[in-house]
């Protein structure tokens, strides 16, 4: 399915990053990243494994501290807010993990209820059930409500992982390798789901991937992360209209092979 490009409101970034640097001992992963994510758009961050794509979204969600630079999320600088403010901010950000990270001792229902019950104190049983049913319906997996994560397929786990983040109505979605390890048909279904989430829940998203099909189907804008910096940013066609030896093999491998 071709992506219908959404032109975000470019005067209003929901995430704004300037001069972000991150190192692990002597290994400089991010070497001065500048990035803006605008309201309502899907931004795909492309790059090879180990280039720091996941590190980038872990910094955005406050899981890792930046070494240098400013990371502003929904108007708040992530490095300078209190734990309480960070917790409140995180409710407005959804994070879909590469391996889904479902709580394997809980059923699908309990997985979905967990963040809801703990963040909306005083919520009634009726409201919880309604919310759970709504997000399960959104990801098309209502029938799995009483199953354990171990009984689900890889694609189903991804969907439930996304549903668990949607239950808090986030304004921003962060997807870490949403199609990794899935068959091509399921990949297309997940890509469609990402687009559906964007329109139905009005989210702005960063999608971390090295899968060009995913990038093409879901990205309104694409940024290529190379050597710890964004080298090319634009639409899919703009990014790959190049003879750059670091970028071209990506396209060749995905679409010519």
């Amino acid at each position, binding site marked *: 399915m071709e992506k219908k490009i959404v032109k975000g409101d470019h005067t209003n970034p929901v995430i704004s990053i300037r001069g972000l640097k991150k190192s692990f001992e002597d290994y400089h992963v991010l070497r001065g990243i500048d990035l803006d994510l605008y309201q309502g758009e899907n931004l795909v961050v492309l790059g090879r494994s180990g280039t720091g794509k996941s590190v980038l979204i872990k910094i955005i969600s406050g899981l890792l501290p930046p070494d240098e630079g400013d990371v502003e999320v929904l108007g708040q600088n992530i490095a300078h807010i209190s734990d309480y403010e960070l917790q409140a901010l995180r409710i407005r950000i959804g994070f879909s993990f590469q391996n889904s990270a479902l709580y*394997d001792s809980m059923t699908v229902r309990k997985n979905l209820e967990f963040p809801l019950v*703990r963040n909306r104190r005083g919520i009634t049983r009726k409201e919880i059930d309604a919310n759970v049913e709504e997000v399960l319906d959104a990801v098309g997996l209502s029938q799995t409500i009483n199953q354990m994560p171990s009984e689900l397929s890889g694609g189903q786990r991804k969907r439930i992982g996304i549903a668990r983040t949607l239950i808090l109505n986030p304004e921003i979605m962060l997807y870490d390798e949403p199609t990794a390890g899935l068959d091509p048909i399921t990949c297309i279904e997940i890509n469609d789901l990402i687009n559906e989430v964007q329109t139905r829940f009005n989210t702005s998203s960063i999608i971390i991937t090295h899968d060009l099909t995913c990038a093409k189907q879901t990205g309104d804008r694409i940024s290529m992360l190379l050597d710890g910096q964004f080298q090319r940013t634009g639409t899919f066609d703009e990014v790959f209209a190049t003879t750059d030896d670091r970028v071209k093999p990506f396209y060749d491998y995905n679409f010519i092979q």
Partner: protein
Amino acid sequence: MDTAASSTPAVRKKKSKLWQSITDFFVSLYNINKFILRFFREAFMPPFEFKEVMRQCYEVGVRSFTLITVTGFIVGLIFTKQSRPSLSQFGATSWLPSLVSIAIMRALAPLVTALIASGKVGSSIGAELGSMRVTEQIDAMEVSGTKPFKFLVCTRVLATTLTIPILSTYTGFIAMFGGYLNVAQNEGTTWSTFIQEFFDPLTYTDFVASLIKSVLFGFTIGIVGCYQGYYSAKGTEGVGKAANGAVVTAMFLVFIEEIIVVQITSWFR
């Protein structure tokens, strides 16, 4: 010559390794203290996770119940059997119930319970949290605005702290029963006489010291298991190390605490 020997690369490497080990030891000591302080900061602040604490108490009790029953019974039986020849040399086998009660209630019941719980409960907490760390479930809780420390660590530490004293008391009574069977078989002592002689030498201090020890052991087992699991290294190797570290460290600390509590209670006697 000494100076030359002390500056060879092999010696320097050995020295730097030793220095690294010392530094690591103090760093981990600092981290554990921080972890314990965080527990006290978060455990008694609302919102409380009563339901999860109760679930964990049940888990801790169920996990160790069978093993503790069998071990407690055998300890009581064997201890009585092994003590008889020494006492019979002086014609003092009638003191067996008193000897067994002092040994079991003052030392063996809390210690045996703690060692079994270190193996069964400590390792399982370490492995469970370690595997949650590896599969990013702890990160998932964190980014969804919930407090994984409160939900995972505080509940488990409270559960072990509350449950180990109960299990320890249970071990004491099971061991007493084991001792009674042996005494009844050999000396023909009745149940009521045995019970009277069993509790006679015990003082209030013995019960309090035993309770304090069990609480301390339970807290140690919980905190060590959680610390090892919560900060386990990535990968399956990390999970194994967390489980193993939880058992070894908890057992070691239990023995150290036993020595300290025994020393302190001896001042009150």
